[in-house]
């Protein structure tokens, strides 16, 4: 057995997902190869650190919030009944609308007959579409509230759309702020995205991403170099964030071109209120 194959099989070996024969081969190889032996040791060490992670307690209000959400939800069996009822209502509404459309078009003169036919076809389609939308919204009513996050999906699509195509020169700026602003809450992804969206209204933000962990929110994006100063002003004066540290990492410059503007790659760390 060679080193490459051995290392490829270590994961299965640890979980004993291999044949007795292969197990012998791996153990023989490891006895002779100190490098692979070390690799196995490293892997075991790393997985041990993973297993050591503690189980996190549920947030205090978890069960309460959840049972509230569930109560707001209609009982599964009833909501099914409701859906059918509304669907059939919507369908009969569509039929009535169609009848009206046809009745109206029948009044059009003979010369316009072809046109009338075409139009009625279109109308029919439109009416059907409308009724679909109606039914859709009725169905949505049964879902009490969409998670906040969903609202941001579109913005994300629009703003982050051309990530792959534009290769830009971007000096990496690490900006670290402490959040002492009682009015600014950024402790989860949806809030971080709202924050980013507000920044986007001022600056030309590209290629963004957010990562939220227990101690901080990391917001990553590119902005044109010439507005960097304005961004810093806004963070300090409008958002009342306290600047702790700024470092630039010119070594991590990305290759440019295709874009006339020079962009700075910002990695904004906002430490949570403690």
């Amino acid at each position, binding site marked *: 057995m060679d080193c490459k194959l051995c290392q490829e099989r270590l994961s*299965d070996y640890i979980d004993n997902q291999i044949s007795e024969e292969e197990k012998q081969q791996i153990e023989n190889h490891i006895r002779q190869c100190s490098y692979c032996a070390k690799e196995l040791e490293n892997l075991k060490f790393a997985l041990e650190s993973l297993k050591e992670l503690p189980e996190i307690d549920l947030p205090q209000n978890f069960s309460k919030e959840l049972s509230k959400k569930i109560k707001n939800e209609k009982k599964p069996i009833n909501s099914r009944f409701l859906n059918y009822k509304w669907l059939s209502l919507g369908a009969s509404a569509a039929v009535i609308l169609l009848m009206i459309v046809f009745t109206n078009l029948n009044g059009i003169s003979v010369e316009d007959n072809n046109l009338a036919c075409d139009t009625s076809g279109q109308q029919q389609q439109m009416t059907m579409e409308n009724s679909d939308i109606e039914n859709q919204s009725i169905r949505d009513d049964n879902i009490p509230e969409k998670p906040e996050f969903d609202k941001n999906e579109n913005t994300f699509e629009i703003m982050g759309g051309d990530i792959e195509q534009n290769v830009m020169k971007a000096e990496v700026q690490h900006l670290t702020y402490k959040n002492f602003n009682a009015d600014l809450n950024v402790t989860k992804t949806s809030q971080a995205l709202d924050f980013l969206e507000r920044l986007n209204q001022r600056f030309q933000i590209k290629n963004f991403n957010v990562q939220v962990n227990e101690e901080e929110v990391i917001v990553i994006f590119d902005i044109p170099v010439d507005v960097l100063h304005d961004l810093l002003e806004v963070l300090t004066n409008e958002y009342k964030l306290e600047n702790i540290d700024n470092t630039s990492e010119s070594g991590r410059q990305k290759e440019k071109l295709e874009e006339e503007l020079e962009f700075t790659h910002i990695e904004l760390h906002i430490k949570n209120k403690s």
Partner: protein
Amino acid sequence: MNSDESLIIDKIKKGDIGSFNILVERYQKQVFNIAYRFVGNSEDASDLAQEAFLKAYKSIKTFRKDSSFKTWMYHITSNVCKDELRKKKKALVVSLDAPISGNDGQEFERQFKSSVLSPEEKYEVQEKQKFVQKIINSLPEDYRMVLILRELQDLSYQEISDILNCSIGTVKSRLNRGRKQFKEKMIAHMEQKNKNQRQIK
């Protein structure tokens, strides 16, 4: 499918919310923990876990008991977590050497209340756990989920393949690659840390 849960599910299908709460009680902690390790913070994890239960409740009538409720529930959880991530679109380069704030130790305080570690040792353990979490978050989502299910939830290959709706071969290869990436980042971090300590001395 054990008969106790089968009965509970029949009751929920007949409209008994109370019975659903029994299942929530039984699985909320694991569901929350899967989400927590996947996203790395408790507010998002709480939202995701609640969304997963709500989805389960809404679609319970389509649950055919082909699998256990647990498998079905984890399947929904995994999908909810990944959907959230898909919205983030671009893979994130997590800054692994980000300075770490020392003022948020409450969560950890609770964990160590009854342990016999010295303050320095506790600090070490906390820092390591934070770091391990950051590495998890830096992995591609497929590898991340399979690692969470295997290493933290201790599930079998068969269970994981049912939850993720993929073959056991796929579970093996994702686990292999996920473990490798995790190991490499972990070892690189430990080496960097040792180097820094030597420099301080």
